[in-house]
Each structure stands twice: as structure tokens, then as C-alpha cells.
């Protein structure tokens, strides 16, 4: 069986701007795969090429064994797409939005009616079937879009920043639904700039920056490779000499990263490090010990943070 995505030297240019720069990628069936990176990294551009919505500028790309340029309509019939913006028709009801989209796939109307019932139950919006979209909350609208993306019973789901703009509770509801999709065996391809989302949902991911892949692998493997087990976040008093404090911390032999608002220390034992810091005479205003995340991987590889 062909892989879900097979890309070699995949490139996307808009005029002189290179959004995706010679990407090599292989995504196998059955895995949930992520594109993690800050805004502007090229994740959406890559996703749109995979979704046969944006023409490839250069390079080789096959999705489910098909050529998005020549077999675009056929390929799109097998994909489920949750775009970054909902683009729902606010004046129409939830069911009408789903029905119109379902007909784009030439699904018979009885089949669509049946699927609408099933899908609304899946996203827990059955009672909103005949409600207009406009008054629904952001999280509900996003769930409608997920239902819409599933109407054609797709083989792969493409999700572009699925929880951006949602409040924490809505995000968790959505993750739960996506997790269930995973359990049903539908491979997910998603882009995100939230490291917790990437860690929760993805079996494997690529970290992207400025159109290039800077790292690839399973979340835990990436963290093990590019960061230590624990990270101590230290905030110093404003009047303290930060540079001097950083030098003191560096003398402990651990990797120290100075960010605009805090200092990060990459250690194996956070408590031991904090004791040492105090022992060397530093008095931080706040200390937080946490485990390393993909954010730290990104910082290590690019020198920048993921969040804008």
C-alpha cells in the first residue's frame, strides 16, 4: 500500500518568497502525524499542497499514491479537510452546511441524511442539527467543521491548526474527538504551533521553521534527543544583573538559555539545580521545575520560541 504522503524536494514558492523549501517527507498509514512550527513556518502551505488545493511549485508529491496535480478532484474525494478558518455559511443551519458539502462529493441524499445523524452524534451536536451556525460558540463551530470533514468517509483527515482560537475547555473536547478518530483507525495529519497538542495527538512529527524541516521523530524521542529530562524556569528580580546571574548558572555545567522574560536551565534533576543556584548566592523571584517539552526542542534547534 502506498504511504499516505510521499514527498521529495517538495517546494512551494509565492513569487520570490519560498514557503516550503525542498521538503522530504514520508507518512505511513495508521499514524497520526504532525507539522509543528511557529506561524509562517510553511506548515499550512505544505498541508495545502498535500490536500491538492495548492499547486506544487517544484518537487515530487504523491498522496495516497495519487498525483495531486493530475488527480486532484479524485484525491480530494478521499480526504477530509478541517481548514484553519471554519468558512461555514453562518446563515444556514448545521445540517444544511453538512448537506451542501456532502453533495459536492456526489453522495446520495439519503446517505447524507444518515451520515449527518451519525456525525452530529459523534461531535456531540445532535440537538443543534437545525440550529443556525451563526449563534454557536467557537468550539461548537469547529466541531461542525470536523463533522463536515468526515461526511465523505475520508481515508485521511487533514487538520490545519485545529484548536487555534479556542478556549481551553473547547480544546480538550476537540482533542477527545480527534483521539477517538485515531482509535477508529483514521490517520490524522495536523499542523499546529501548540506543543501540547502535538505531544497529545501525534505519533510522529516534523518540526518546521522557515519552510524547512529541522527535526523529525516521535515526540518523546525528539525531547530525549534535544533536551534534558527536566527544565527549571527561573525569573530574576528586575534589578538583578541578568548576565551575571546567567554566568553563575552556567558554571554549574548545565545548558542555560536566557529568554526575554525568564531563564531556562536544562538539567536532569531540577531540585538539585535549584539548591545549587541558591548555594551560589542567587535569589530568584520565581522558580518552576517542569519536564522538557517540544517547545524546548524547538528552542534548541532554532534559537527561538514556538509561540508568537
Amino acid at each position, binding site marked *: 500500500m502506498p504511504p499516505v504522503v510521499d514527498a521529495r524536494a517538495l517546494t512551494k514558492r*509565492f513569487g520570490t518568497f519560498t514557503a516550503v523549501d525542498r521538503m522530504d517527507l514520508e507518512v505511513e498509514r495508521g499514524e497520526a502525524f504532525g507539522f509543528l512550527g511557529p506561524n509562517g513556518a510553511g506548515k499550512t502551505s505544505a498541508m495545502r499542497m498535500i*490536500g491538492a*488545493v*495548492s*499547486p506544487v511549485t517544484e518537487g515530487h508529491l504523491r498522496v495516497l499514491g495519487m498525483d495531486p496535480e493530475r488527480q*486532484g*478532484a*479524485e484525491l*480530494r*474525494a478521499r*480526504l477530509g*479537510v478541517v*481548514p484553519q*478558518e471554519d*468558512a*461555514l*455559511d*453562518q*446563515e*444556514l443551519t448545521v445540517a*444544511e452546511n453538512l*448537506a*451542501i*458539502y456532502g*453533495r*459536492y*462529493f*456526489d453522495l446520495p441524499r439519503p446517505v447524507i441524511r444518515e451520515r449527518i445523524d451519525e456525525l452530529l452524534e459523534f461531535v456531540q451536536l445532535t440537538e443543534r442539527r437545525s440550529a443556525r451556525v451563526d449563534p454557536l460558540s467557537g468550539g461548537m463551530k469547529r466541531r461542525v467543521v470536523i463533522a463536515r470533514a468526515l461526511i*465523505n468517509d475520508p481515508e485521511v483527515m487533514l487538520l490545519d491548526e485545529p484548536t487555534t482560537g479556542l478556549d481551553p475547555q473547547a480544546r480538550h473536547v476537540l482533542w477527545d474527538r480527534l483521539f477517538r478518530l485515531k482509535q477508529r483507525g483514521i490517520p490524522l495529519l495536523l499542523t499546529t504551533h501548540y506543543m501540547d497538542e502535538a505531544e497529545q495527538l501525534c505519533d510522529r512529527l516534523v518540526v518546521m521553521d522557515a519552510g524547512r524541516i529541522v527535526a523529525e521523530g516521535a515526540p518523546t524521542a525528539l525531547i530525549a534527543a534535544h533536551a534534558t529530562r527536566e527544565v527549571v524556569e527561573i525569573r530574576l528580580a528586575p534589578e538583578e544583573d541578568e548576565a551575571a546571574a546567567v554566568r553563575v548558572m552556567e558554571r554549574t555545567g548545565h545548558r542555560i538559555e536566557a529568554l526575554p522574560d525568564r531563564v531556562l536551565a536544562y538539567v536532569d534533576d531540577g531540585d538539585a539545580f535549584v539548591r545549587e543556584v541558591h548555594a551560589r548566592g542567587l535569589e530568584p523571584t520565581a522558580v518552576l521545575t517542569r519536564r522538557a517539552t517540544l517547545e524546548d526542542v524547538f528552542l534548541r534547534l532554532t534559537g527561538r520560541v514556538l509561540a508568537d
Partner: protein
Amino acid sequence: MATPIALRVLEGHARSYRHTWRGTTIGAVLTPVLFLAAMGLGLGQLVDREPTAALGELSYLAWLTPGLLAASAMQAGAADGTFPVLGGTRWVRTYHTAVASPVRPRDLHLGNLLWATIRISVIALVFVVVAAGFGAVPLARGLLAMGPAVLTGVAFCAALSAGVVLMIRDQFLAGLNRFVIVPLFLFSGTFFPVEQLPPVAGTIARVLPLWHGVELTRALALGTAPALAWPVHLGVVVALLVAGILAGSVTFDRRLRP
């Protein structure tokens, strides 16, 4: 056999129309009827004090009706070529959703055009029936004259939508209406013969497509000969339609698959 994709798009238009028809079609039907009453009946009484050679000795009402039919069809076509396209690309962005499915950009262009054809035909039909009720046109001739009128409206829809899909600022729309649609509506032989216009304006009016649609509509409604040969007038309107369809498949693609 699979339903042609443009027809699936057409179906989508029909479904969403349930919610919007009151706001749009009633106005589109009412306006030309009001014009007919005000100009045809009202103004007509003044014009008809003496038979007017320039109107072929007809009553103003009878002369005006086909002009108004064609021009109103053009206006409806212009509306269908602008608002749904801007809605799909900028305001509601449903076109962007649609192209993630098997629908291709040119299917959106054609689907919209098919829907416009239906809507313009309905508007034209209601107008003809009402006008026949006024005694402004024999019903049979009126129905015949619908042909070129609807064709003109659809041609404008095709051409305008091909351009509007590329629009990135809404204020162009106001300019389009003010400097193109309204002047065309007023000066293409709709309310008075183009011979009344000063030479330069008259030449411009005769070059632009609406006058040709008006001539064809008037010829069929009144049973007279159009100003130029039938194939010439027909050729201009059909050329506009074909150009719009061809241009649209390029521009819709450029806008929706960057």
C-alpha cells in the same frame, strides 16, 4: 453516472437560497415593475402627447418595455456576478471550503452562472407577465423577447464574475456599480433611443454589449428589425458570454488555488 460537478454547486446555491430569496428576488422583480409604472405609464403620458417618430410611432410604454426587460436582466446578472462571488471569496469564504472537495474553481464559476440563469429567467418572466398585464406587450412576444434578455444578463454575470473573483477590496464594487452598471442601464437605448445621445457617447453605447441585447429584445418584442444585422448583435452578446466563461476558468483558478 456522476452528477456533473457544476450541478452539485448549483444545488448548493438552491439550498441556501431558501434563506435569502426574500431579500433578493423580490427587490429584483419589484424594481423594474416600478420603473415600468413610473416611466412607462407616468412619463409615457407626456411623451405620447404626440406620436413620436423616433419611437416608431409606438406608445412610450410599448417602446420602453423591452429595453427595461433587457436592462433589468443585465442588472440582475451583474448582481449575480458580484455579490455571490465576493461572498464566496471574501465575506463568507464558502468558495475556499468548496475547493477542498472535488469541486474545482471553474465549477464554482459555472455553478454560479447556472444559478444566475435560473434567477434571471424567473425575474424576466415575472416582468413579462406583469408588463403583459399592463398591456405593454403581447404576452407571446414578451415571452419570446425573454430569450435575448436572459442571454444578456447571463453574459454579464459570466464576464463580471470572472473579474470580481480577483477583487481584493470591496470599494471597487461601489465604483463598478456607479461607473459601469448604472450608466449602462440608463444609456444603452433603454429609456430613449441611442440616436438621442451626442455622437461620442452614442458610439460608446453602440460598442458596449447591453445596447446589442436591448436591440435584440426590442426587435422580438415589437416585431421590428434591430438596428444592425441579427448576427452582429447576437455575436456581441455571445462573445461576452464566451469570453466571461473562458476568463472565469482562469481567474477563479488563480484566486482559489494560489
